[in-house]
């Protein structure tokens, strides 16, 4: 059990926001009970401390959100169309090596890639920052570029300065 000092306050804040949204009204009582519940939760179920290295870049974040929604819509419709047309679908499993090797960037890119229809992350190799992606019925090189484009957007939204610089440098591959 952890002491109060070890509590991750951002996590508590997020839990309180969820609690208030679930109750549906912003009242002092809701905030206080939410705070109590969140602190007790963090004490009873402690998560391993994370050094996230998370930065938020507002412009990058808006760009990421907008282009992500466009991606989601376009490929959602495409996947729907592929489902309905009777032609056999070519599929491929690609290894895409990312340029940033931080855990957070790797995880965020993986989530973004799998939230976009038509691609799913099958395997993540942490040591080389490689995602193995299953793609359905599209041009392979286009799919590979798509993953790297998402990585660029994610890093420009959440990455540290060093990570953004490594994007510009072209990375390791």
């Amino acid at each position, binding site marked *: 059990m952890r002491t109060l000092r070890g509590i991750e306050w951002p996590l508590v804040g997020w839990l309180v926001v969820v609690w208030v949204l679930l109750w549906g009204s912003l009242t002092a009582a809701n905030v206080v009970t939410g705070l109590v519940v969140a602190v007790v939760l963090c004490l009873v179920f402690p998560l391993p401390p994370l050094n996230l290295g998370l930065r938020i870049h507002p412009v990058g974040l808006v760009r990421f959100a907008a282009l992500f929604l466009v991606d989601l819509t376009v490929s959602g419709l495409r996947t729907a169309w592929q489902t309905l047309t009777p032609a056999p679908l070519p*599929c491929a499993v690609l290894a895409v090596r990312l340029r940033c090797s931080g855990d957070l960037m790797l995880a965020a890119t993986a989530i973004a890639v799998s939230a976009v229809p038509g691609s799913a992350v099958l395997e993540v190799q942490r040591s080389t920052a490689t995602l193995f992606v299953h793609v359905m019925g599209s041009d392979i090189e286009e799919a590979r570029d798509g993953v790297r484009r998402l990585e660029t957007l994610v890093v420009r939204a959440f990455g540290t300065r060093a990570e953004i610089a490594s994007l510009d440098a072209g990375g390791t591959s």
Partner: protein
Amino acid sequence: MTVLDWGSVCDWTAAVFLLLGAALCFVAGVGLLRLPDTLTRMHAATKPQVLGLLLVLVGVALRLRSWVDVGTLVLIGAFQLMTVPVAAHMVGRAAYRTGQVRGDQLVLDELDDHLTRSGPD
């Protein structure tokens, strides 16, 4: 006579969003029946369905038009976007490793080499 009645404009837009979302969820169901193997079925089950659900949520928000409900709907959407990739990853990983992938459908497989050569880390 008012030309623009915002209430009914919102209602009609909401109806369009709801129908579009429902149609996409329906396509996801069709995909489960029609597609050949686990991985492609998983695409159908997880992906158009996410977009479909988001459209349904937007539709519901436009119809309800109260901030309390919008907060709850945003939560639903956020949790959907966060959990679906994890679930899809676990299913996909298990399917691949247990050989549920139809090799004749793959035009390129860069994971097979990787797993047989070195083993995962």
